[in-house]
């Protein structure tokens, strides 16, 4: 990390010297998915947010190590006398069309992003009121103390009010396109020069960017390449400089060639198995059809002890994964150090637990998995199924594409299922809210808790965690949740998904744990 920063500083110096010769550093990159839209509030998906973070900016932003740092706000502090935050905005910032950035633009963007037509409105659920104090000060009032709020809006991108309203893009387009679907006007380091959706998007640096550019890119071309082999060929033939991601099985091929490098890291996504806690019987069992053995924590623990993570790591992931003990990886805020042990691989113990629970010969059940969502997801489930079988848990595996996977899970059509979760706020509170709190559509909690794991104490702890300002007291509350959910084996956390990118040797870039690719850290040497 330090060397990258050092190099980019050096390069920054070198650049200013060579600026006269106007060396063009064109940069080309590819990824599997084209951002569906250029509208930062229309779709809350990683390809869109990642791409648009190069063009638009939020009040705060994430640094190379995911830490929150000032962006369009220079500082922020809790409001006195009421719940919420005051943001002091940066002065002298201009949008790419030259107009000035003020608190009115933040206010407008808030109204736009929290509108029913916006897919990102859930970020503003705690907000009750937004007030423009003066041209460069804005208050976000929340219903309860909300220490996480500033970091939860790192992807809330600010649009220019005049630009959006005068181009009929005051609201995100829901079922038709509008001006902001194809055009941009942000404050960020890059702007869109040309866009051909699904084919090619060319970005150009924003000359009036407020921050000092650490990159030396004069033109950046993005091409979506859906087919992994084609993407690899494009990199190896030199037509592109960088690609994210590459399949695990291609790592060796890239490493074996001169002039290319593989960038490996840990994504923040934890892969896990979930159970139908609420189901009163198994749906896919050929022998136990009257009850659901997984309602017994001993059976769930037995399943956890049956998993041999070391073999999965070695055989399927070439030693590139980190076993997980909880639903966020180490390093994420709220990670529970006190509960960092995971159930060890112990088939004998698994069998004993099953016998104790009344299933000495095991039973059969259905295991649902995706086959196109996570790295090696189908292979993982096959391996897990054979490990389960070794202790008597006969998993009937069914795999399918993710496009009809979530509806199946929502309809409770599973006995056990695979899920990967990346904490959108990079805090443990996120998976507690979405995966551990009981399902509560009214209050928008537990919306991805498909099996409806429910524990009254966890439900009680979530609002306390959300509102606790003191870090130590907060960690104690989080530790309690993690401890409860581990004791009850609410999920079987498996591992943190690896992040594998590939680039030419002459490219310096930063691989951030949220799998976002930021052009502002790219240097072409």
């Amino acid at each position: 990390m330090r060397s990258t920063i050092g190099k980019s500083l050096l390069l920054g110096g070198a650049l200013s010297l060579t600026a006269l010769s106007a060396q063009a550093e064109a940069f080309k990159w590819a990824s599997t998915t084209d951002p569906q839209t250029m509208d930062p509030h229309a779709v809350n998906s990683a390809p869109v947010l990642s791409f648009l973070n190069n063009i638009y900016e939020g009040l705060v932003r994430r640094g190379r190590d995911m830490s929150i740092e000032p962006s369009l706000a220079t500082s922020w502090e809790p409001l006195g006398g009421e719940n919420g935050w005051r943001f002091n905005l940066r002065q002298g910032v201009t949008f790419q069309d030259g107009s000035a950035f003020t608190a009115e633009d933040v206010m407008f963007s808030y109204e736009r992003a929290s509108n029913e037509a916006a897919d990102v409105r859930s970020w503003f659920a705690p907000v009750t009121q937004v007030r423009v104090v003066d041209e460069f000060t804005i208050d976000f009032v929340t219903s309860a103390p909300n220490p996480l709020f500033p970091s939860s809006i790192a992807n809330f991108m600010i649009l220019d009010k005049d630009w959006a309203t005068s181009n009929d893009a005051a609201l995100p387009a829901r079922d038709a396109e509008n001006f902001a679907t194809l055009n941009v006007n942000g404050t960020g380091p890059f702007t869109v020069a040309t866009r051909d959706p699904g084919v090619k998007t060319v970005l150009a640096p924003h000359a009036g960017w407020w921050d000092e550019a650490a990159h030396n890119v004069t033109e950046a071309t993005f091409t979506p390449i859906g087919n992994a082999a084609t993407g690899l060929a494009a990199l190896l033939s030199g037509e592109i400089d960088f690609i994210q991601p590459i399949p695990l099985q291609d790592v060796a091929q890239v490493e074996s060639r001169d002039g290319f490098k593989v960038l490996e890291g840990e994504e923040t996504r934890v892969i896990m198995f979930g159970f139908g806690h609420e189901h009163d019987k198994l749906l896919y069992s050929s022998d136990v059809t009257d009850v659901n053995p997984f309602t017994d924590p001993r059976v769930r623990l037995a399943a956890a002890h049956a998993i041999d993570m070391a073999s999965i790591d070695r055989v399927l992931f070439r030693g590139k994964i980190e076993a997980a003990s909880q639903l966020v990886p180490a390093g994420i805020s709220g990670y529970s150090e006190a509960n960092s042990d995971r159930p060890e691989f112990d088939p004998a113990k698994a069998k004993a637990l099953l016998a104790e629970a009344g299933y000495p010969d095991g039973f059969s059940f259905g295991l649902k998995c995706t086959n196109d969502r996570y790295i090696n997801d189908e292979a993982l489930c096959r391996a897990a199924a054979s490990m389960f079988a070794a202790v008597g848990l006969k998993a009937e595996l069914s795999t399918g594409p993710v496009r009809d996977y979530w509806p199946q899970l929502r309809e409770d059509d599973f006995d056990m299922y695979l899920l990967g979760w990346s904490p959108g706020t990079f805090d443990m509170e996120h998976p507690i809210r979405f995966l551990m709190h009981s399902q509560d559509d009214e209050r928008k909690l537990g919306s991805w808790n498909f099996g409806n794991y429910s524990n009254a104490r966890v439900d009680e702890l979530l609002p306390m965690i959300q509102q606790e300002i003191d870090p130590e007291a907060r960690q104690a509350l989080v530790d309690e949740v993690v401890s409860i959910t581990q004791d009850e084996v609410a999920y079987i956390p498996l591992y943190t998904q690896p992040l594998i990118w590939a680039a030419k040797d002459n490219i310096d870039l930063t691989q951030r744990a949220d799998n976002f690719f930021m052009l502002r850290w790219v240097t072409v040497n």
Partner: protein
Amino acid sequence: MAYFIAKRLVQSVFVMLAVAFLAFSLFRFVGDPITQMTGVETSVADQERLREELGLNDSFALQFARFTGDMLKGDFGFSYRTRQPVAEMIATRIPATLELGVVALLISLFVGIPAGVYTALRPRGFATQAILMATLVGVSIPTFVIGIMLIFFFGVQLGWLPTFGRGGTVKLGGWETSFLTVDGWRALILPAFTLGVYQLTLTMRLVRAEMMEVMRSDYIRFATARGVPMRRLYFRHALANTMVPVITIIGLQFGGVIAFSIVTESVFQWPGMGLLFLESIRFVDIPVMGVYLVVIAFFFVVVNLIVDLLYVAIDPRLRIRDVS
């Protein structure tokens, strides 16, 4: 003749309706568009509201009626994925697919027909055996494997040709063409060959079989005895008589080439309709999938119509019957 064409075009409307109906009844099994359109943090209530807004809760009959009604009015709707007008999305992708398909067809004809004639005239020659073997291997390997092999050999190892995309294109009105730049042609070679290789083999084998049949017929012997020059004999008398079945098959195949260039387009990231369709499946983009399938049905109808017209042009006997 005009009546014949008009009748066919009217029929095509029914074909398209039938295709739309079949496609629509399958869409329910493709997946849920809403979970593809929204982020993980979107609440269940917001998802339901969107589902209601898009009319996805309506009955199948109502959704189908709305789709066909809008299509008849010329309103092709908006993509769920990109929110762009579907008509525009498909229109901008048609040139890429058509140019690829036409070049693939030309490769298959200009290589396939001479090779077919040659292998028919010298059935036991060494070159014939080599050609037959090579093309057999060519059809036996799946298209995407051929594509990947070509990419790695010509694109990565030798570095002669680009590995993906259309290269340089020039806009002529609304038509984006690869034909006017060197880069465009270079990018076209590998995908066109990949797409055309099956067609090429088929054409060659068909021409060869027909040629061998014709060469045994009486009129060829008489012509040989009369001393008709060999060249004229082969190409004017023999080859012309093999063309009716060849055109039938090639015509039908060409519809397929256009319609199912999906695999080739995916391997070469060729921005045509097939690639668009593939992306649409991934995102359960029902409006795009629906319109694509209807457009493809229309292509099939038109290609078949052209094939029928070509018969008349090639075979004088059909013309006489038509007049009588």
